[in-house]
């Protein structure tokens, strides 16, 4: 992955204690920025990516040559308007786009770290990214925003750093991974582990990779990102370039062909070990457990204004779970707004062109930016 050398990096020199007990230091964080940091440094937004995202939230992703994962929401004139705001997005640790992860080369052995990489948590990811505030000398972010695993990072961020963001927008997420969430992630991990190419995680040194396992993991996960209605409308029982069933195990149906395609393009841009580590971090996420079972206690010191967003057809992180965050915040009198956006696009709604979502998010960020600044003057 020579192209990774083109990504922007900072090396975090100071040691960071991980939840697993290990300590890391001198590790890289890859990031990308959009827009310009103003003189007062009050227009910065930290965006957190989801499971398979990366730092390339907008514009062209130089590694995949495709649009950034949040191109609908983020860019000049978009909801997260980069003509107005300075947006930072970093690859999480454990990831495979340049930040410290299982594919990072161990300097001592000259080989990828593989499964010698420590098991990390959402908390570890957030603490690592906090270094970016120091790097850019930003005292307080205007906003922290993220969907899915990005939303979990938003919640962890405001809990860890209660006075470092004016606005917190967790989208389509949960404060605690459910048994169903863990089950789907385990399915994906088992698909990778079952691939003989995985070799206990030391595949890169053998110049092979568990592509089949990773592709199956992606296929299974992809189903959870869509809604039944969305799938039915897009694919139904339509056949793939054929007039009738072939009585074989080829991709007869369009949906099969679609999933196979999703799996095959995914393996070109994602590392199987990263998939294991990041899904593990999501499964370990249980914010209330960090505060003796009280989610409200996680936010007791917060000064942030919250905007929680869920989607009607999201069954992976359903409205009820997003509402639990709202309820916990209301219990302590925090400033929290909440809306469930109508959409057939399932969990992926936050990544797609859903005008109600994009308009509300955009207006919310614009109006509150004014209010926050007025208060300061």
């Amino acid at each position: 992955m020579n192209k990774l050398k083109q990504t922007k990096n900072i090396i975090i020199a100071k040691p960071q204690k991980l939840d697993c007990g290990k300590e890391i230091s001198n590790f890289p964080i890859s990031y990308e920025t959009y827009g310009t940091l103003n003189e007062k440094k009050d227009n910065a937004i930290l965006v957190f990516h989801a499971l398979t995202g990366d730092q390339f939230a907008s514009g062209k992703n130089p590694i995949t040559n495709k649009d950034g994962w949040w191109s609908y929401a983020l860019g000049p004139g978009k909801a997260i308007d980069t003509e107005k705001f300075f947006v930072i997005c970093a690859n999480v640790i454990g990831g495979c786009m340049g930040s410290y992860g299982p594919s990072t080369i161990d300097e001592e052995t000259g080989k990828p770290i593989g499964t010698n990489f420590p098991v990390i948590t959402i908390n570890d990811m957030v603490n690592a990214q906090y270094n970016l505030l120091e790097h850019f000398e930003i005292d307080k972010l205007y906003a922290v925003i993220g969907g899915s695993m990005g939303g979990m990072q938003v919640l962890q961020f405001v809990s860890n750093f209660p006075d470092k963001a004016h606005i917190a927008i967790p989208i389509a997420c949960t404060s605690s991974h459910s048994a169903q969430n863990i089950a789907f992630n385990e399915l994906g991990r088992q698909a990778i582990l079952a691939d003989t190419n995985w070799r206990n995680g030391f595949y890169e040194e053998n110049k092979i990779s568990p592509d089949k396992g990773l592709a199956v993991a992606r296929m299974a996960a992809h189903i959870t990102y869509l809604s039944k209605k969305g799938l039915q409308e897009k694919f139904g029982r339509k056949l793939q370039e054929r007039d009738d069933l072939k009585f074989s195990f080829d991709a007869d149906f369009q949906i099969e062909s679609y999933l196979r395609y999703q799996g095959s393009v995914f393996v070109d841009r994602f590392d199987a070990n990263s998939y294991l580590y990041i899904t593990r971090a999501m499964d370990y996420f249980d914010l209330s457990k960090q505060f003796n079972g009280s989610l409200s206690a996680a936010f007791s010191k917060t000064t942030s204004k919250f905007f929680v967003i869920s989607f009607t057809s999201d069954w992976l992180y359903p409205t009820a779970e997003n509402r639990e965050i709202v309820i916990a915040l209301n219990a302590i009198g925090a400033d929290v707004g909440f809306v469930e956006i109508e959409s057939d696009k399932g969990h992926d709604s936050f990544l797609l062109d859903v005008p109600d979502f994009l308009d509300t998010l955009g207006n919310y960020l614009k109006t509150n930016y004014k209010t926050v600044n007025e208060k300061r003057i």
Partner: protein
Amino acid sequence: MKKEFKVISELILQNSKVLDVGCGDGELMKFLRDNKTTKIRGLEISKNRVQNCLSKGLTVIEGNAENDLQQFPNNSFDFVILSQTLQAFLDPEKVISELLRVGKKAIVTIPNFGYWKVRLNLLIKGTMPVTENLPNEWYNTPNLHMCTLRDFFNFCSKREIKIFKSLALKNDKTLNLSAKNLAWRNLESQLGIFLIEK
């Protein structure tokens, strides 16, 4: 702005914590935020209206009073407002008790079914009343539990709810309302505004 909202805002103390239940497009919230207090929250059932409010920078939660007030702790607001929606709930009694649990005081406004035009409608025409304030037919009205100003007075005394202040609106004119002038006010006014406390 609606006269009703002006009267409500006059009842609210500067810098108090306010919850507007059924805040609609946030017209009252915005007025209160600009003139009375920044500590104002809203609860609204319609997604579009919630989106409108959030777009204006107002802190609003999607939800309804029957299910979603329970998430607020006791006495978490100084004032809880319920404007002209009490009659639309399945269980108005429960809603009132929730308002008075969440708020130290509640401001409840009621379209008056005792208004003379309403009474006349039923008496003369023999049909369910349709007026400017109550424009729906019986088969499509959201109003399940209409009451008169006297009914609300009786309800409060039965439930030992203190009426701190009560006002009536007659064609946008504010009138004082009390047990003494109730018979007449119950006939001439379209709306009752009650500041209540447990």
